[in-house]
């Protein structure tokens, strides 16, 4: 026994020492030679224009392949899990790493990256980006002082994605412009919900869909928290939909939500919505029948352009039965921005690659086709695809729609958005469930935000503000 143990231990020790020296190879890490792919194939013929890219999704691998075939320069694409990406970047670049040349960021991460000084100055491309790409992406790519630091290859304008067949039945038309009128303001949405309810349909999966429309005005301006009539209308509308049972209680990303894209859904009560999270469609329908509230259909979804693709991919029999139109205000959500590592030793090459991904018309056209419907950031290319009839959306000219929609996006992202939206969401929940009056909830909202950010103040003329 003891011999065996000793032998095993000895074996493990030798093994560990032997493989440590081969796998670890710490002596190889001197600055100047960037650590390359896996320590494997690349030998001495490493070119000056080869770069390393850190990203969150596989999209850019396709870009890198295309880049290599066209220019001969290799781009090593390293994909990280999105949940930890920001931590990883913060750690690595916080230590001024030279191991990567290009990295990506989503709009809400970018301000942090700018502030930390991780993103190199891209103002050499400024004029091109400003004129040829969509305005809001240019603004999102600039830091506080207006210096361009990040560029996106895609644009993610928002839309109301609605069911054409139901629209015809209820409103007598499925024309996007006509349907948009029914979503033109929070009051209109309430009326639309009433009309749909009379026919047995739900306007949204859940009233959280309205949150996308909450960005018509910035949340914070000149250090002041902005609560205006628009935000109060949003609160009223959510309360109206909830209290009159005009939503299906199919929460975004839950099983009923996905199922609703393909067809009818049992009408469930809010209390049940937690229980049905894991059920499949047949179970849901049985459950609905047992509950005695019958079947309903979800009329529309509010999502950025990539959300339209999710609806399309889960529509099954309803494919081609959807249309896209505008809501009360234009908005955007998500999108991958490319930026150059400030500490990189291949800044020129890195910038060339970003230019290739974002400002090259051919690349944009190729990506629009290769990605099967991604909305690219290049206005000229979108213009060229204006007449494309999208079968998945009832032969609508979706690119023309998104192009027009993007022009209307008012970029007003602030660092306080997430916290404000969170707190406002809580206030709405309290009001819609009748736990608090509107006045109490709004006052608590002010308090919540001020506690988190003492530097902010509330304008004296804000609703329900008592000093």
């Amino acid at each position, binding site marked *: *026994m*003891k011999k065996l*143990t*000793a032998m095993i*231990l000895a074996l*493990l*020790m030798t*093994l*560990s020492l032997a*493989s*440590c020296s081969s*796998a*670890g*190879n*710490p002596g190889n*890490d*001197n600055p100047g030679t960037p*650590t390359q*792919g*896996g*320590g*494997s194939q690349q030998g001495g013929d490493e070119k000056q224009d080869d770069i390393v890219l850190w990203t*969150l*999704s*596989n999209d850019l691998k396709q870009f890198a392949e295309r880049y290599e075939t066209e220019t001969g320069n290799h781009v090593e694409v*390293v*994909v*990280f*899990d*999105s*949940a*930890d990406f920001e*931590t*990883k970047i913060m*750690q*690595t670049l916080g*230590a001024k*790493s030279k*191991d*990567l040349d290009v990295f990506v960021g989503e709009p809400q991460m970018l301000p942090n990256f700018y502030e930390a000084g991780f993103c190199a100055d891209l103002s050499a491309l400024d004029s091109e980006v400003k004129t040829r790409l969509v305005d809001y992406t240019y603004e999102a790519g600039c830091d506080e002082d207006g210096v361009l630091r990040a560029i996106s290859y895609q644009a993610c304008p928002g839309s109301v994605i609605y069911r054409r067949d139901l629209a015809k039945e209820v409103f007598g038309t499925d024309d996007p412009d006509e349907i948009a009128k029914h979503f033109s303001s929070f009051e209109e949405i309430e009326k639309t919900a009433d009309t749909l309810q009379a026919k047995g349909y739900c306007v949204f999966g859940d009233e959280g869909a309205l949150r996308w429309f909450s960005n018509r005005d910035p949340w914070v301006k000149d250090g002041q928290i902005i609560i205006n009539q628009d935000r109060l209308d949003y609160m009223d509308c959510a309360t109206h939909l909830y209290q009159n049972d005009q939503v299906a209680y199919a929460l975004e990303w839950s*099983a009923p939500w*996905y*199922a609703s894209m393909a067809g009818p859904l049992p009408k469930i009560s809010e209390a049940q919505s937690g229980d049905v999270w*894991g*059920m*499949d*469609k047949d*179970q849901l329908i049985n459950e609905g029948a047992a509950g005695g509230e019958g079947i309903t259909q979800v009329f529309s979804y509010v999502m950025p352009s990539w959300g339209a693709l*999710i609806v399309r*991919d*889960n529509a099954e029999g309803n494919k081609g039965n959807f249309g896209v139109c505008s809501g009360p205000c234009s908005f955007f959500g998500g999108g991958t921005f490319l930026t150059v590592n400030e500490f990189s030793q291949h800044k020129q090459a890195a910038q060339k690659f970003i230019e290739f991904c974002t400002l090259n018309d051919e690349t944009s056209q190729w990506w629009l086709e290769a990605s099967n419907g991604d909305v690219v950031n290049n206005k000229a290319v979108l213009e060229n695809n204006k007449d494309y009839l999208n079968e998945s959306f009832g032969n609508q000219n979706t690119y023309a729609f998104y192009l027009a929609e993007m022009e209307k996006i008012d970029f007003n992202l602030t660092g306080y958005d997430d916290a404000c939206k969170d707190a406002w969401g809580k206030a709405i929940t309290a009001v819609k469930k009748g736990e608090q009056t509107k006045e109490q909830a709004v006052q608590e909202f002010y308090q919540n935000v001020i506690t988190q950010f003492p530097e902010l103040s509330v304008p004296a003329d804000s609703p329900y503000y008592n000093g």
Partner: protein
Amino acid sequence: MDAKSKSVKALLYLFLILLSTLCFTPFWLMIVNATRTGNEIMTGFSLLPGGSLAENWKIVSENLNLGRGFLNSLFLAVCNTALVSYFSALTAYGLAYYKFKGAKVIFTALLIFMMVPSQLSMLGFYDLVNQMGLIDTYWPLILPSIASPATVFFLRQYILSVMPKAILEAPRIDGASEFKIFHKIVLPIMAPGIATMAIGAFIGSWNNYLIPMLIINTPAKRPLPVMVAELSAVRDITTNMGATYLVVAISAVPIMIAFCFFSKYIISGISAGSVKE
């Protein structure tokens, strides 16, 4: 056997069956989900396997170098386990049976460090590793396991309870060196305790995500958990769900094997000691 004890027994069995079902169900669901498509997983829940195992495997094998990840993880886990086992046993033995100045202080320091969660020291650790130029190597993932206070603490208590000091007198009289005593006598006596800690170390290293995620940059050097996370980034999460479950299920296999291999030591390690003389 009378009716009463029979019914008690039945109740006990019922309870045990319930308990084991409770423990086993999540594993079963993981295995079932590994055979279903992402869409099925998102829209429903089933106890019976689906038919998409091959499809999921295709996604996995196209996107991940699973064998490489396995080897990386295994290498790290084996090194960590070996270092934790050997050096912790050595330290524990020293602290338990040698009288030297400061032994108490060292032991107290160990206890204090045991209380500090490793996440706290992470920023500093990263900076240190970076200064030493060891980012993207395995050294920072292996070497720190030489010092693991919790294991030392457990083994010290263990050896004090299983080995009377008198055992050391015989070899000393026979002229064995101190290291020989440790290797030939102390180590075998401690084996069950070491095995208990070793399985913990193995599982800990196998499942370790945060530190490898931060330290390792090159995809080919990634251990399995970091690779699994990458899979969810590869495409739309809904389409990859089944494949992710499959990798998780596969990556749980070595832990099960490790447990089977060590479990008899664990049980004897936990129960041994008290009444032996």
